[in-house]
């Protein structure tokens, strides 16, 4: 009899303890408030992240789409462009940032003023400067070819009419726009290295290049790796630098996945499913990157 009474009471006890577990240390109405405070964000997250993401997955779930995408020569060109863009864009940008952050460690007012000017590309909205670069590269009236003509008397190429020159210009614009940002972050990373370490290294005879290879870089390596991952992920989603500088042209030969999916597939061809499939084909690259990044961030949060 008593046993069955306990058995009867158990679910209620369990329910109560589960309830207590969810409430944590919060008492009375506090729990209600705590929930009320997170509800707006959960709402935003469900409505504007989960819902579109699931909708996108559903749109791109038809296998027939992928045969159509993979048989499209423009798509294959776009994949090549994206690879080149990633290889050069990320590495040139971060290598420059690593070197320049060392330059900006130099003492003196001039370096500080120069840094203020140097961050301009990042502080100015992307749109005006990318449009400006687009016009600068105009074959007939652009600043670059005017300069070549006036100073060297030479006719410059029409930059945006050849695939490789145009792609190079887009990569250049991207590097121009984003190097200051990564430089500032790496500068903060360098500044967080305590001076004592350099002093100790100096006593041991490490100066100049050796100081960099044996002291600075090992200490920055983890940050550099995290930044590489972040830069790769962000570059995969880049839209503006290609859209404004080359417009995907000439003849759709310089698209990246994002511009191909949105501009050509959805707006020009009116086939959004195709665009979703094109963009989703980056997921096999994107997902591992995100997982590695999340793991790295957990170990190096203090450094960021």
């Amino acid at each position, binding site marked *: 009899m008593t046993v069955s009474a306990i058995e009867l009471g158990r679910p209620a006890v369990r329910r109560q303890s589960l309830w207590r577990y969810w409430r*944590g240390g919060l008492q009375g*109405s506090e729990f209600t*408030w*705590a929930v009320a*405070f*997170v509800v*707006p*964000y959960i709402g*935003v*997250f469900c409505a*504007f*992240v989960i819902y*579109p*993401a699931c*909708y*996108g997955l559903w*749109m791109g779930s038809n296998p027939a789409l992928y045969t159509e995408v993979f048989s499209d020569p423009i798509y294959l060109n776009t994949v090549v462009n994206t690879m080149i863009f990633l290889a050069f864009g990320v590495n040139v940008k971060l290598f420059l940032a690593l070197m320049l952050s060392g*330059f900006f460690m130099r003492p003196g007012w*001039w370096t500080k003023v*120069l840094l203020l000017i*140097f961050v*301009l590309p*990042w*502080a*100015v*909205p*992307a*749109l*005006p400067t990318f*449009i*400006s670069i687009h*016009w600068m590269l105009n074959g007939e*009236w652009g*600043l670059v070819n*005017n*300069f070549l003509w*006036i100073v060297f008397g030479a006719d410059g190429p029409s930059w945006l009419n050849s695939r490789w020159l145009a792609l190079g210009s887009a990569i250049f614009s991207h590097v*121009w726009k984003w190097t200051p*940002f990564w430089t*500032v*972050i790496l500068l903060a990373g360098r*500044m967080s290295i305590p001076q004592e370490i350099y*002093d100790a290294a100096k006593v041991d005879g490490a100066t100049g290049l050796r100081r960099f290879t044996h002291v600075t870089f090992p200490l920055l390596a983890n940050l550099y790796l995290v930044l590489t991952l*972040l830069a790769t992920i962000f570059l995969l*989603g*880049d*839209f*503006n630098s290609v859209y*404004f500088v080359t417009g995907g042209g000439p003849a759709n030969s310089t698209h990246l996945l*994002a511009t191909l999916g*949105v501009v050509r597939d*959805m707006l020009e061809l009116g086939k959004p499913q195709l665009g*979703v499939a094109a*963009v989703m084909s*980056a997921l096999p690259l*994107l997902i591992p990157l*995100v997982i590695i*990044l*999340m793991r790295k961030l957990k170990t190096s949060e203090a450094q*960021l």
Partner: protein
Amino acid sequence: VTSIAVEARPASAPARSSERMRRAARRWRYLTNAGAAVVSALLLVWTLTPIYNIIMVSLESEGDVAVTHLFPSPPSAESFWVVVTEGHWYLEAFWHQFGNSVFLAAMVTLFVLLIGSLTSFSIGRMRIRNGWIITNAALLTYVIPASFLAIPFYLIMNHYGLQNNPWSVIAVLVTFATPYAIFIFQEYGRSIPLELDESARIDGASPVQIYLRIYLPLMAPALVAVGTYALLLAWNEYLYQFLLLSNDRSMTVAVALGKFLNSDVAPWNYMMATAIIYALPPLATYYAFRNRMSSGLTMGGVKG
């Protein structure tokens, strides 16, 4: 450090050798200074050329655009006047569009601060159980490229008839800016002792009172930093504004600029003048709040 180095040198060393060392050191200093000057000059040219081009083209008068020169003679402020007085059919609704941009940026900032601070108050201060799930979900949003959700989001908004409605863009920008806000608020909130909340609780303060009277005032620096970030993000964003705001009355300055570029006969001088007017508010905001957005906070500026 230098004193150690000086003492380490044998005191009995001949004066000649110390003189030679000093000369070598001086030569080395000259060399590095010269190198720094070269790097500085290169950086200035690199950074300022596209910006110089915007200013140059904006100072050209109407027939001047198609002339081979490196600076217009004489420069004219006519195009700025045309923009400000809406004197070209492309610019008919310029101030209205400017107002749209201001409204959009203000609303995004407001909602990012509100939702972000409420969420991080609940997770970080009230310690709601399993709050880490929300933090991680937010982090995940931060690393998903915004352009990847553009197509499904565009179709969903069309489906609900929300195209040309500024609130659709506000919603998406809030979604992409809030994760960063939550991240920064939680990091910053760690520096505020929890005992403050505890003692207020014992004195009978409700969670809402603690949020308003203790949390928000102490979080002011982080609020300013994140507010600046959200403001710049909303003002500078292009892709979603371009997709969702397409008619003349609802579009923002960014969309109008992009439309300029795609027209057959783009009046480049008016376009560049518009671009300068568009770029000035975020530039002023950035330089005014630069020091408040401390280096660790720069992480967020990357989201394009």
